[in-house]
């Protein structure tokens, strides 16, 4: 859905749903996923419908993903890091 104006400098590798994704230092998890062509971030607890970032500034919470085992992380607010493990958030959270 989005392309990078600059292709070089993708020095970070993180993991999304078992796939290796390249990213640039300083960008958010949401930007890195969108640049990698990931168009669905979560499935809602109510109907299971797919969602992706809407506002990208921390308001809408539609970019929620699980990062390194912690659920309900706003992908648009978290800077991407090398070795990060990111998963789609599916349905409702449990209490852990």
């Amino acid at each position, binding site marked *: *859905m*989005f*392309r*990078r*104006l*600059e292709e070089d400098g993708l020095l970070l590798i993180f993991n999304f749903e078992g796939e290796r994704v390249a990213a*640039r230092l*300083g*960008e*958010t998890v949401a*930007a*890195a996923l*969108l*640049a990698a062509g990931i*168009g*669905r*971030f979560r499935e*809602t607890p*109510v*109907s299971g*419908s*797919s*969602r*992706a*970032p*809407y*506002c*990208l*500034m*921390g*308001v*809408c*919470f*539609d970019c*929620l993903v699980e990062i390194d085992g*912690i659920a*309900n*992380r*706003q992908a*648009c*607010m978290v*800077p991407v890091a090398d070795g990060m493990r990111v998963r789609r958030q599916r349905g409702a959270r449990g209490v852990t």
Partner: protein
Amino acid sequence: MSTRWDAIVIGAGPGGMAGACVLAENGARVLVLDEQPAPGGQIYRAVENVAAQGADALARLGADYAAGADLVARFRVSGSTFQPGSTVWQVAPERAVWVSCGGRSACLEADVILLATGAMERPVPVPGWTLPGVMTAGAVQILLKSAALVPSVPFVLAGSGPLPLLVAQQCIAAGAAPAAFLDTGSWQDAVAAVRYLPGALGETARRTLAKGLALHAALRRGGMKMFRGVHDIRIEGDDRAEAISFRVGRRQHRMPVALVALHEGVIPAQQITRAIGCAHAWDVGQRCFRPQIDDWGNSSVEGVLVAGDAAGIGGAAAAASAGRVAAFEALRRLGRIDAARRDALAATDRRAMKAERAVRPLLDRMFTPRREILCPADDVVVCRCEEVTAGALRQAVAQGCQGPNQAKSFLRCGMGPCQGRLCGPVVAEVIATARGQAVDATGYFRIRPPMKPVTLGEIAELET
């Protein structure tokens, strides 16, 4: 990190940065908290990074954006303590601020709190707005500013206001022209706005208008496909946006698209001011709630000041002036200057603020949001998190629901992860209309902590 400060500024956009500069340069111990990794707010987001990429990258985003670099540079050397990556999840009226940073939370206290939390884009509830591939015009711009990403699929900008025009220009400059611009503004609104023209003839207002007209003309000259008076927007698709249909007059149009960027103006971000308990008022002209402040930025809560778009939409330049004005008042509150000195120091910025705001009534009327997004049709999802439609809300009202807070019990509306940030304005309008009431009489969600997700472990580890 010290837990006790003279002043805590929340938000490092133009208002927060300008305010922090004044406070620090006058000897106050000031801490600035912001969720982003770098100062700038949304308007000057990542401006240091973009400037470091070179003149081309900066030119692509325009002169107004580039101007933010000066304010950021001054802020960096102001002597204020900047703590980026900080998520404020509770602010108590006793001026205690709970903040999460790097997976740990702390409770900080200050004599004065300056809220400069800015604006958010007004929700645009149209059929299909929850589909992947539908985002705000601001979101597209954020990707361009912060990650140098541009749309790679056929996309349209749909809405009204200055921002989508600017985003269109920036995308074109970056080689990613939109397939079309669907202008939801109408000539009737433009005509109605003319009566506000006499108030917008000052030099600053004229400059703002001239910039807007030049931008519009340049986009037209550049051959961007534009539809005017667009309404009845519907985004179609099964699991993602595939097409957009809309009407111009009676004529129906349909375009295949993979990305839709919506925008219908901006409104103050109310979450923190509501959570503290600041009194809010309904702004008829801007069609939104805003915290009530006096001429110096004081809210109804002692020692809590609000500056910039968080207190009513005025734009970046007005926000910087308002941040400085509030900071001079904060210095008076801290006992560092007296009222006479405050008045003298703030005079220039108070004049600038007035000049910047003179154009607003005209812009507010010209870009007034249309009824169908303020109060959408029954089948449209209002609360994205809990998937509650406008129809369900109206049914709840018919069953006796008296306001937004009762709607939570009826429908869980506003109780999902966004905590009512995105549905609140629409819920208030829909209920008000269904009850035949004014929006301010209907009221708004009570906002409860934590305002952002924080783990139980992080709360348990808080030092008390």
